[in-house]
């Protein structure tokens, strides 16, 4: 035992482990830093999990345009615990995005971005967008048909940036088209370039947490004054501060461990995202859809008025980043308590509702034609009239059912036509079919009079 102690003392003396890390572990924190403070460290736990599972995946994954899909199939179907590994990496990414979002929301609601923690907020905003970039490039590395088309969608969005859009799109794809260089670049972005920037900013972010201390729990009416704050904080820590470990850190550890256990359970029970078709850009019968954390943006592109969309693709993200970065410069002192900052709470709730509603809309994807819709069955047509029956068949063949629902079948893009005869006259229906509308093609030149009569007869039977 004595020998072991002597060995440890030698290692500790020469390596400086205790000297370097003990002050960090034992640094004083304000009392009352409870469960709302655990989300930053949970993000860090998720990141560590992502690094470890990412390295494990890299041992099995082939980062080449031709081999990636097959290696993913190998990882999923044949490698020992490969499916679970992919699942952990996928749910780990989801966990990291959720945790970073909640952490940011907590910092905003409790105004922890105010003096002297402005740089902590700014680096946090950068880290948020880097995390999303990691999520997106990770989705591209799932090199199936969805990955290929998602990279084209990303290139199209970059293309909207004035002047440099096309070169940026070309840089992303690694050329004029998807090809041999595409996946190598996505791999380099996801595994080297973005993580390197993350480590840089994360190191600085954590260093700032130690330098400025974690923000004390808020108290209504206690105003933050930049002139006196640092001294006040120092005195407060001296008087009532508690060592981070174990008095505050145990919560971080428990919550972080619970998060990781939840991620592993999801990976085992739900499994990784299914691979779609091979990454062949000539296979056009594909329905690309982003992972859940990009679904809100996917919805926004569908719901935005087309006239402003190209501009909003550029201005929207730019404005969001600028507003977030500007926040600590707009307000960096005064009240921090959410009780006295009702608009901050209201704004946060609105953002959550907005993003969540867009997510639900994205899940529904009402704007997408339902190509898998089957022709209407006899029970749905509910008529023995041969013209009605042939009208219903034509309604399907002309693609109307992809967008309109009739008696439980069909798409959601257009109005439900199950009872259309009760609200539109035959003349009104004719005008709409011939001329189309915002979201409907004009069928005037594409169907004969006879076909029009058949469709009208069918629609008139929809009561």
């Amino acid at each position, binding site marked *: 035992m004595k020998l072991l102690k002597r060995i440890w003392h030698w290692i500790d003396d020469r390596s400086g482990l205790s000297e370097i890390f003990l002050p960090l572990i034992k640094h004083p924190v304000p009392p009352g830093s409870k469960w709302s403070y655990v989300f930053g460290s949970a993000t860090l736990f998720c990141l560590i999990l992502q690094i470890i599972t990412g390295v494990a995946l890299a041992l099995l994954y082939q980062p080449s*345009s*031709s*081999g990636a899909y097959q290696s993913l199939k190998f990882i999923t179907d044949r490698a020992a615990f490969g499916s679970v590994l992919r699942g952990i990496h996928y749910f780990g990414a989801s966990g990291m995005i959720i945790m970073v979002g909640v952490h940011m929301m907590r910092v905003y609601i409790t105004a922890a971005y105010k003096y002297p923690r402005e740089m902590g907020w700014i680096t946090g905003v950068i880290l948020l967008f880097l995390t999303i970039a990691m999520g997106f490039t990770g989705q591209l590395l799932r090199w199936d048909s969805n990955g290929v*088309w998602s990279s*084209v*969608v990303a*290139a*199209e*969005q970059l*293309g*909207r*940036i*004035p002047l440099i*859009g*096309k*070169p940026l*799109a*070309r*840089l992303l*794809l*690694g*050329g*004029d*088209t*998807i*090809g*041999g*260089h595409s*996946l190598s670049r996505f791999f380099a972005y996801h595994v080297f370039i973005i993580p390197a920037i993350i480590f840089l900013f994360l190191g600085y972010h954590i260093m700032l947490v130690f330098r400025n201390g974690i923000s004390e729990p808020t108290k209504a009416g206690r105003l933050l004054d930049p002139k006196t704050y640092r001294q006040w904080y120092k005195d407060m820590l001296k008087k009532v501060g508690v060592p981070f470990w174990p008095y505050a850190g145990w919560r971080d550890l428990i919550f972080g461990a619970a998060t990781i256990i939840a991620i592993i359970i999801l990976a085992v029970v739900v499994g990784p995202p299914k691979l779609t078709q*091979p*990454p062949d*850009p*000539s*296979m*056009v*019968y*594909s*329905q*690309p859809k982003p992972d859940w954390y990009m679904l809100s943006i996917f919805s926004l*592109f*569908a719901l*935005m008025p*087309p006239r402003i*969309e*190209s501009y909003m693709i*550029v201005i929207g993200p730019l404005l969001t980043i600028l507003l977030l970065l500007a926040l600590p410069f707009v307000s960096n002192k005064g009240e921090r308590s959410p009780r006295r900052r009702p608009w901050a709470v209201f704004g946060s709730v609105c953002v959550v509702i907005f993003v969540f509603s867009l997510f639900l809309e994205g899940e529904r994807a009402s*704007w*997408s*034609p339902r*190509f898998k819709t089957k022709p209407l069955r006899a029970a749905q047509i509910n008529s023995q009239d041969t013209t009605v029956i042939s009208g219903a068949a034509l309604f399907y063949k*002309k*693609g109307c059912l*992809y967008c309109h629902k009739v008696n439980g079948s069909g798409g959601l893009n257009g109005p439900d036509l199950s009872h259309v005869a009760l609200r539109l006259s035959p003349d009104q229906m004719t005008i709409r079919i011939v001329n*189309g*509308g915002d*979201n*409907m*093609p*004009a069928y005037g030149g*594409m169907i004969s009079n006879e076909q029009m009569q058949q469709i009208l007869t069918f629609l008139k039977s929809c009561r």
Partner: protein
Amino acid sequence: MNETQENQTRRSFLVKLSTGLAAISAVIAAVPVLSSFFAPLLEKTPVQWRPVGDLSKFTVGDTMLVQFENADPETWAGVTAHTAAWLRRDTEKSFTAFSANCTHLGCPIRWEKDAQLFMCPCHGGVYYKDGSVAAGPPPKSLVKYKVRINKNQVEIQTSPVPITTISA
């Protein structure tokens, strides 16, 4: 100049020299690094004519999906070197080839033969048979590729993925 001043001048010169040398070595090392990053902008992709089938394969009035290799297929590209277009035989001697990418966000459009429409699965973009926008968010018509008939073979000229710019 006394000894201290001389030392100062020497030190100052050495600081400038070492900083300068470090900067030069960084710049020299950065050239190949940055050129690998910007390689796609430095290289010009060749334009190729790709055969997509014998003339007799296409019926006048029909629109077909044709698959061919892109202009610069690397040996390690695998199936990602493939690309596609929608090809219509307008008359005995003329064809129109449409890009398979929606002009909204590049998703793969499909031809609905009975409806005589191109439809996009992503955000509901719809195009008429001439490629003009029929409904949904696409800001412009489908991009057309050049087609020619060469010794009874129909050939399509390879093109970049059509990127819609903000001015579209």
